């Protein structure tokens, strides 16, 4: 179920979620005081699960800020333990994937939950994750997918293949690989759509931050790009925004050695001012201007009209179709644009078969979605 838009707390569940987003930060709101009825806590835990904030609830309960009855604590403990059991399986998979990729010389940057848990959270126990996200250089992308799906490699399964051969390495955002019960997301860029095409991807591999899991060193983005990626993920990752992304951005800003002004300049250079501006607005909406602190600067940025237009492609339920169309406006070169257009209009039979579609149903589906937007 898609998470609801964050709003000013009007009931106890909303107040609990708002407290979870800002937990541990200077100026954070007080946690609502109990006693709570069991139904309120059950709804709060389920909402926190949608927003991937169960770790924040557990952290607050662990430190005595979120006071619950024994039964309520047991409910939260079970959800938290289940989520962390999944995370441990993901970390184990990360070790296996890294061993295969390292041996082949495929460079990676770990993104999102697994990296953030180890670099900006006080204790990785308080950050949950659903997938294993790795950024791979475009030049290595096809090889990485091949190794992830090869029987002599990681033996994964790619249920939905690329639109046409070579599409993902040139234009794609990611390839989704099933590794047993886990999902490995091989990313080429931060986001789908136009703002994913204007990122200078080589810059992301020029430097890194390292962290260790079970004795193996992994690389994630440098602090500068971690903060910028947190903006992209907050603004464009899920629609409506998932509150965990808001918490990640707040923590990245407070805990990483990254200069916000420099981040804004990189966003300007990438044509992504609209992205960081939206991230700033979402932060202020979610936690208010006091806790947002310096991140308010993002919300106050002037955004070029063209970027505002591109952003609209993301803010619609039909975004799986509107984003590719908007991408045509930013892909450089006529030939590349034609290759892109051909791929999205006439995907390969292999792709259509993997989705259970025909060319006709693919086009009809796209037109229907865009018409009803």
């Amino acid at each position: 179920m898609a998470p609801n838009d964050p709003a000013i707390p009007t009931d106890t569940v909303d107040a609990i979620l708002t407290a979870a987003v800002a937990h541990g930060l200077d100026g954070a709101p007080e946690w609502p005081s109990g006693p709570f009825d069991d139904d309120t806590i059950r709804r709060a835990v389920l909402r926190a699960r949608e927003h991937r904030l169960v770790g924040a609830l557990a952290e607050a309960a662990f430190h005595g800020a979120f006071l619950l009855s024994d039964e309520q604590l047991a409910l939260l403990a079970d959800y938290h333990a289940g989520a962390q059991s999944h995370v441990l399986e993901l970390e184990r998979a990360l070790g296996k994937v890294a061993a295969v990729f390292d041996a082949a010389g495929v460079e990676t940057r770990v993104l999102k939950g697994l990296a953030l848990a180890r670099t900006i959270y006080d204790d990785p126990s308080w950050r949950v994750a659903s997938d294993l996200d790795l950024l791979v250089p475009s030049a290595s992308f096809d090889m990485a997918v091949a190794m992830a799906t090869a029987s002599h490699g990681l033996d994964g399964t790619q249920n939905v293949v690329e639109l046409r051969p070579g599409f993902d390495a040139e234009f794609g955002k990611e390839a989704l690989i099933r590794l047993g019960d886990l999902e490995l997301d091989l990313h080429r860029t931060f986001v789908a759509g136009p703002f994913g095409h204007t990122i200078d991807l080589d810059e992301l591999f020029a430097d890194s931050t390292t962290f260790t899991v079970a004795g193996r060193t992994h690389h994630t983005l440098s602090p500068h790009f971690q903060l910028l990626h947190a903006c992209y993920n907050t603004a464009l990752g899920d629609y409506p925004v998932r509150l965990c992304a808001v918490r990640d951005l707040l923590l990245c800003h407070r805990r990483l050695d990254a200069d916000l002004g420099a981040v804004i300049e990189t966003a300007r250079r990438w044509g992504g001012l609209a992205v960081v501006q939206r991230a700033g607005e979402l932060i202020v909406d979610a936690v208010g201007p006091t806790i947002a602190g310096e991140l308010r600067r993002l919300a106050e940025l002037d955004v070029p009209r063209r970027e505002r237009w591109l952003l609209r492609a993301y803010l619609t339920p039909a975004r799986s179709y509107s984003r590719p169309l908007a991408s045509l406006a930013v892909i450089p070169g006529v030939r590349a644009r034609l290759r892109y257009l051909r791929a999205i209009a006439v995907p390969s039979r292999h792709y259509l078969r993997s989705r259970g579609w025909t060319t006709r149903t693919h086009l009809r589906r796209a037109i229907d979605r865009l018409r009803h937007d």
Partner: protein
Amino acid sequence: MTEPSPPTPEAEAVRGHDVLRRSADTLWRRLLGGVLLLAPDMDEPLRLSQPADVLWELLAEAIPFDALVAVLAEAHDVPADVVRNDLTPLVERLLAAGAIVVVRQ
């Protein structure tokens, strides 16, 4: 997740002077009322509920098994022999799974 169970027949027997600590290869997370471990030889995560999770805290640094027993006996005001009997199967299971290692015998 599973609760601790008796050691497998292959489990290594722990002796009083064995110095133990966590294995660097073991993944773990703090829980509300316990810890969750995933060692290289475990099929699935193992949940250590209170008070067994204190054992994991103590094993952050190398410590002789006899000292572990003494600390826990004093903390819970229970005879050392009782603690030793309760602790031995769990420690041997953790050793067998590779969650902890003997650093010195």
